[in-house]
């Protein structure tokens, strides 16, 4: 069918900020959709509140709105843009829910906007579990016994026929938030009550437990002609009971026979037809009873998803791109497969490798959170790896995680602990499994504790057995001799077998008690090199044109030299790397060939190292920068080579860079690529800490690092050298010291004076950073911090209380320095910059201060001969300017600055790094803007019940939003709406403050009362306010008897919570206030500066309506 001509303009909704369960996979899908639709000649209107996305780049759509994702804002945009259609399936659950709301409120009808891809009925049938169950029953498919309950009473009735253990799933929540498993009545009641509250429709599905069953997913696509294809099957390593986002998953399915797979395939096809998803992709989950093969349908997502992003990367089939084209009427057979070019998209990819996805957790950021893995997703990111076997891909995945693990290392714990850890799944379960095997526990026993399929367990056993074999060569090796002994360390065949199993050099070295480099040298001596294979969608049946590569080790083959009758042309591999495993049998003249398909070009090329898995402190912002580096260098005619292992990202889309290596970002894996590609240089500045850590070791190997030199980076990172630098430039720094031991730290703190901010060096995201007020807490901290980063010393800084924090992004070509943006933080210094809201341009700073900050930034950039990006953090206290830190590399705020000012900083920086000057690039001065952009952080607190929402120096946010408008109040108001903390315009405000904040509260409360709010406060705060003549109500603290403030919150009598605390006891006492505000979705702030900004916003929003304006219009003519 030809594409539709009756629609011209299509509205696309993004997924908003990065949160747990909804990460940058939707930037990937949205970006693909934008590109695909425009390629077909449609105009695209895009709405997303997340500035750190490629999709919101002005080039990606015809009109881009970085605005809150709410029905009223969307209505304004629809009214203005008059789109013909809305494609709701690209922006995750957020976009789907919003589309449903727009449809149900008849907004789409009113403006004649057609839902394409999935119609309202289909969305509801897939999302409403009761309707879904009916549909499944209708087509003869089995579903777990279940009941939909809307109250505790109904729930108690339902559990009678369902039985324990039962699974609870609240309707319409993200990533299964609020779900859980109940083993007894008490747990059941507790979970049910929470689920009912969390569900926006107050419904919970109570289901028969299929815990321990095998879990599968199929990615299905359907076109308008009813052609259906399965793109990928995924088998979960972790059985049912652990959210698929938290499970290790493997593609393709490993333990299904063809009959069972086809049965699942037939079911998936029947499901997509019955649900009626018109066109596009869906994800369908199944559970299979390992005892008898009973198969039940778990759920269906009628949209692209995290799994479809994974499936796209795993197979090379771009689901979102194709889905977008199907939505406008094309059919699968009309769309070519990009990779093979000759074949159409109406096929099912077949793969000749094994893909492993491994989740990345951030429990170290939330020590109070329960790290048990359940049906509620808790991971913050993931890695994917490709190997020729499960063992290889698993080991590659482990080292991709960047958790200082390079294999299945030993854990020294009691057997009883191991058993507990096997039974209670946590993020480290696979290491405990390997330890259990090491200690002789049988596969059957491990299976009974974990319910993991024995097939996976046996594979782990093979890895452990191989370790033992390697380790048997460790005796006899003395560390110092290792280099000279290298040729005799371990036999060639065994080393080959180990590499075949995916062992990293580092793990092998560890087993042999030598250095990683020794193994590297040994491999070179044995001529044992990694080879690269292509992800080609077809198992090598057809030639592939897209260099999407992964590494592996293969044993060689050769041409027998005897009698060669030229029956066939001699074999000419694209790049034959000699060597490999034991070839004792070959004839003397035959050449050993290990086939490598990398086929590097002779073009001038640059390798860009990506940022690895998303984690708190290093997320989509860095992938954004890497993608921009690729775009910029392509513009300059370079061949761009991307190395990354995060399947959610735009950077790992095979058509972003010219060549994609889907590989772990370790020194070994990166060096292997460089040996093959021989690039002109390497860009490490854009991917955050991940590639930066590799800069020095890579430079040591003689590899050219482009841009600011690793030495300059070190001068900024190393505290002693940094101090010298500031001293030289006569710049001020909060007093600081470096300590290598606990005692040194105590001395330093006493000399500087408490409170001090303390942290290990070389970390992102404020990992393990804390403010301490006395020696006792300092000692406690040191115990933890040293564990956090053993190779680096600890930093002690004077903590500047109540200072204003400033972030500056600048760019330099080594001569000129241009300021990208000066951002004033809303929250005071001491709260991690990643967690703080900020305003561009500054909203309260005086001009002289800003000018001085810019001057200092320039001086720093020049002194460090920055070539590329630089970020400086300042604190301003009593008109004094202190430098907090300097990072001569891309920062988290680069995308935000780009969106706020329209200057593509990352792109320009990449060009500068390959030798362009800022003048040549036309950037001669700072860009001044007439609007205000506010960035706000988004937190995962709702995922971690029990974790306090108080902000501190340790970064906890997962994502960000941007509010943009004519003035600060409205921009801030929008930013709050976008992160789900919508500021009320009327009602009752609760306020409870620490003493230090009380003076500032007088003006806040006065204004609130003037604006028509009523104010209720805890006794101390109320008394203070009353003393200042303000009319406030008093409410009990939780410790003071009932009714107390939490009762008020639960009864929804409070519209906004302002709560600041200091001291551990006060924090403990008031914890339930913040927790219930979070739980009941009451907007809140935990800083007085946040409260001031909120009041400012309320005042403005009451006076004026918010404006909507596209980014293209904001930056028009610039």
């Amino acid at each position, binding site marked *: 069918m030809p594409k539709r001509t009756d629609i011209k303009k299509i509205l696309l909704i993004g997924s908003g900020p990065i949160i747990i369960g909804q990460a940058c996979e939707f930037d990937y899908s949205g970006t693909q959709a934008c590109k695909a639709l425009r390629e077909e000649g449609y105009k695209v209107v895009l709405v997303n509140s997340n500035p750190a996305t490629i999709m919101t780049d002005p080039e990606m759509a015809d009109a881009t709105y970085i605005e809150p994702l709410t029905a009223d804002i969307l209505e304004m945009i629809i009214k203005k843009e008059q789109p013909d259609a809305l494609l709701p399936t690209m922006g995750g659950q957020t976009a789907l829910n919003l589309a449903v709301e727009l449809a149900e409120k008849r907004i789409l009808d009113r403006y004649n906007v057609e839902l394409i891809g999935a119609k309202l009925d289909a969305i509801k049938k897939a999302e409403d579990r009761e309707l879904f169950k009916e549909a499944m029953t209708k087509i003869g498919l089995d579903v777990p016994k279940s009941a939909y309950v809307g109250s505790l009473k109904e729930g108690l009735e339902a559990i009678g026929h369902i039985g324990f253990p039962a699974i609870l799933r609240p309707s319409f929540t993200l990533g299964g938030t609020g779900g859980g498993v109940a083993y007894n009545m008490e747990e059941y009641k507790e979970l049910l009550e929470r689920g009912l509250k969390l569900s926006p429709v107050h419904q919970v599905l109570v289901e028969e437990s299929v815990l321990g069953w095998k879990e599968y997913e199929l990615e299905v696509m359907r076109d308008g*002609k*009813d052609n259906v*294809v*399965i793109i990928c099957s995924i088998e979960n390593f972790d059985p049912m009971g652990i959210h698929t986002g938290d499970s290790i998953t493997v593609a393709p399915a490993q*333990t*299904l*026979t*063809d*009959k*069972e797979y*086809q049965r699942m*395939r*037939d079911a998936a096809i029947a499901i997509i037809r019955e649900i009626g998803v018109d066109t596009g992709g869906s994800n369908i989950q199944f559970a299979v009873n390992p005892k008898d093969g*009973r198969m039940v349908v778990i759920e269906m997502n009628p949209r692209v998803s995290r799994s479809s992003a994974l499936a796209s990367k795993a197979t090379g089939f771009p689901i979102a791109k194709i889905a977008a084209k199907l939505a406008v009427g094309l059919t699968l057979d009309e769309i070519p497969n990009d990779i093979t070019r000759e*074949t159409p998209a*109406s096929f*099912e990819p*077949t*793969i*000749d490798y*094994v893909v492993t996805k491994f989740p990345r957790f951030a429990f170290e950021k939330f020590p109070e959170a329960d790290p048990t893995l359940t049906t509620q997703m808790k991971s913050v990111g993931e890695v994917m790896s490709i190997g020729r*076997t*499960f063992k290889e891909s698993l080991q590659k995945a482990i080292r991709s995680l960047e*958790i200082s*693990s390079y294999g299945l*290392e*030993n854990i*020294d714990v009691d057997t009883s602990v191991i058993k507990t850890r096997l039974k209670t799944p946590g993020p*480290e379960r696979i290491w405990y499994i390997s330890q259990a095997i090491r*200690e*002789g526990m049988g596969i059957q026993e491990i299976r009974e504790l974990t319910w993991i*399929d*024995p*097939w996976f367990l*046996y594979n782990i056993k*093979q890895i452990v*057995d*191989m370790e*033992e*074999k390697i380790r048997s060569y460790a005796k006899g090796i003395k560390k110092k001799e290792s280099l000279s002994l290298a040729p005799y360390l371990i036999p060639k065949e065994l080393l080959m*077998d180990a590499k075949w199993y995916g062992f990293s050099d580092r793990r092998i070295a*560890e087993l042999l008690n030598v250095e990683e480099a020794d193994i590297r040298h040994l491999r070179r001596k044995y001529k044992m090199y990694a080879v690269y*294979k292509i992800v080609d969608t*077809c*198992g*090598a*049946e057809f030639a592939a044109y897209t260099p999407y590569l992964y590494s592996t080790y*293969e*044993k060689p*083959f050769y*041409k*027998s030299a*005897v*009698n060669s009758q030229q*029956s066939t*042309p001699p074999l000419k591999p694209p790049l034959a790397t000699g060597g490999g495993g034991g070839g004792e*049998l070959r*004839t003397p003249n035959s050449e050993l060939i*290990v*086939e490598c398909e990398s086929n590097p070009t002779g073009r001038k090329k640059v390798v860009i190292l990506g940022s690895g898995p998303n984690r708190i402190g290093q997320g989509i912002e860095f992938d954004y920068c890497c993608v921009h580096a690729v775009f910029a260098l392509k513009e300059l005619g370079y061949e761009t080579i991307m190395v990354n292992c995060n399947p959610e990202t735009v950077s790992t889309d095979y058509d972003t860079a010219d060549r994609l290596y889907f590989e772990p970002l370790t020194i070994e894996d990166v060096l292997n690529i460089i040996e093959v590609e021989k690039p002109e240089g390497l860009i490490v500045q854009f991917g955050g800490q991940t590639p930066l850590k590799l800069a020095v070791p890579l430079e040591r190997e003689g590899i050219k690092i482009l841009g600011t030199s690793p030495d300059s980076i070190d001068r900024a990172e190393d505290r002693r050298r940094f101090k010298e630098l500031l001293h030289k430039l006569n710049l001020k720094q909060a007093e600081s010291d470096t300590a290598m031991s606990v005692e040194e730290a105590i001395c330093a703190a006493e000399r500087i004076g408490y409170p001090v901010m303390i942290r290990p060096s070389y970390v992102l995201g404020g990992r393990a950073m804390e403010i301490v007020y006395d020696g006792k807490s300092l000692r406690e901290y040191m115990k933890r911090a040293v564990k956090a980063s053993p190779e680096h010393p600890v930093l002690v800084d004077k903590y500047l209380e109540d200072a204003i924090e400033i972030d500056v992004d600048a760019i330099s070509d080594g001569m000129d320095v241009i300021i990208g943006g000066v951002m004033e933080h809303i929250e005071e210094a001491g709260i991690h910059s990643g967690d703080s809201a900020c305003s561009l341009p500054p909203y309260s700073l005086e001009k002289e201060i800003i000018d001085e900050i810019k001057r200092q930034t320039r001086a720093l950039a020049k002194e460090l001969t920055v070539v590329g990006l630089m970020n400086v953090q300042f604190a301003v206290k009593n008109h004094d300017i202190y430098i907090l830190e300097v990072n001569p590399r891309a920062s988290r705020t680069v995308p935000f600055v780009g969106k706020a000012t329209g200057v593509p900083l990352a792109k320009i920086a990449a060009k500068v790094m390959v030798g362009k000057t800022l003048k040549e690039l036309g950037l001669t001065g700072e860009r001044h803007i007439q609007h205000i952009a506010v960035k706000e952080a988004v937190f995962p607190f709702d995922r971690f019940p029990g974790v306090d929402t108080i902000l501190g120096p340790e970064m906890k946010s997962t994502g960000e939003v941007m509010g943009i408008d004519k003035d600060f109040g409205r921009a801030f108001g929008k930013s709050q709406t976008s992160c789900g903390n919508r500021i009320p315009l009327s009602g009752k405000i609760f306020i409870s403050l620490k003493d230090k904040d009380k003076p500032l509260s007088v003006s806040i409360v006065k204004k609130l009362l003037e604006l028509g709010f009523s104010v209720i406060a805890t006794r101390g705060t109320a008394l203070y306010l009353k003393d200042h003549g303000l009319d406030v109500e008093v409410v009990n603290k939780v410790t003071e008897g009932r009714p107390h403030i939490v009762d008020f919150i639960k009864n929804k009598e409070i519209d906004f919570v302002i709560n600041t605390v200091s001291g551990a006891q006060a924090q403990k006492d008031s914890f339930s206030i913040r927790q219930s505000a979070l739980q009941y979705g009451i907007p809140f702030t935990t800083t007085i500066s946040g409260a001031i900004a909120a009041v400012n916003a309320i005042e403005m929003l009451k006076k004026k309506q918010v404006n909507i304006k596209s980014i293209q219009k904001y930056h028009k003519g610039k």
Partner: protein
Amino acid sequence: MAVNPVRKFGPVPLENFSNGVKALLVLSDGTVFEGKNFGAEGKTIGEVVFNTSMTGYQEILTDPSYKGQIVAMTYPQIGNYGVNAEDIESLGGPKVEGFIVKEYLDFPSNWRAMRGSLSDYLKEYQIVGIEGVDTRALTRHLRDTGSQMGIISAKDLNPQSLLEKVRKHPGIVGIDLVKEVTTKEAYPWNEGCWKWHPDSQLPTPNSQLKRVIVYDFGVKLSILRNLVDAGFDVYVVPAKTPAEEVLDMNPDGILLSNGPGDPEPVTYAIKNTKKLIGKKPIFGICLGHQILGLAMGGRTYKLKFGHHGGNHPVMDLKTNEVEITSQNHNFCVEVASLKGQVELTHKNLYDGTEEGMRHVELPILSVQYHPEAGPGPNDATYLFKRFRELIEKTHG
């Protein structure tokens, strides 16, 4: 993370990966792959072909169409779910000459798996396997140079003498392999397709069973099972059964089955088919399709490396719908050579080759691919119903 690398010596390893029995795969162009033996020991010669199906190795091994061929699986991990009593495409064990995989896994896991592993199964039926081969390199090599003969040897590891042996082998073009796999005796068949829960999903009982005679050129049991499900009374006869004998049985329709190798040397089948055309509705599958083509005076041609997999898109030219199909053939019918007797009904969207035809006047239809799946998708099982409808239309 809290995992500290503490060294501790565990139990002595149970299996010794490096010390398996070595084996060689030597292709007739002199390319030598080293690996390890699994399954039976010894030597085996056959035409080396690859199959891109990710599941279904047991069906592939037992598919009689692979007689004379050594199959290399492009999916790298084989043995995962073991073998079972149900997923077989012929009785009496595997029909392939040999089996090539990247990694063989000896610890099956599946609720239907029988005792014993895939390797045990291959040993039982004397099938030689080799693992540890870079099957992707092998596949690319076969793709570029075309299918060729090869030898797997587990004990004799002299590449030169093995190469000589494989070059001396006459090959399989022009050889009648059908006679080696066809049944000796005629037999009735009444088992339907595999269902998870036989009671709950019984095929709707059909009072009007239609009788079909299946010419066994190496028939896959899935064809027979699908015929049963489509409401046929199935009777299988040996490949050389004279047409007259079949017509004497007065069946409602005739199915010409799949089978191994080159259709041209199967002259008796072509001759018999000529006699059947116009007498009874006929359905041809794979080799049966080719034989039908030849019987009608058409030509066949050999593909460079054949179609062997479970993911080929085929378009039904009548509805323009795409079905994902199971494929296993090296030869194709040149539909144009049939000069208007038939119309092309199905086309392969990968390479545009002919996948199905229908006689313009007579009740004859045939497909090159495998609507019976086994392994592969069930998208095309409608063809068995279409055959039944054709019969009903013919006989009223």
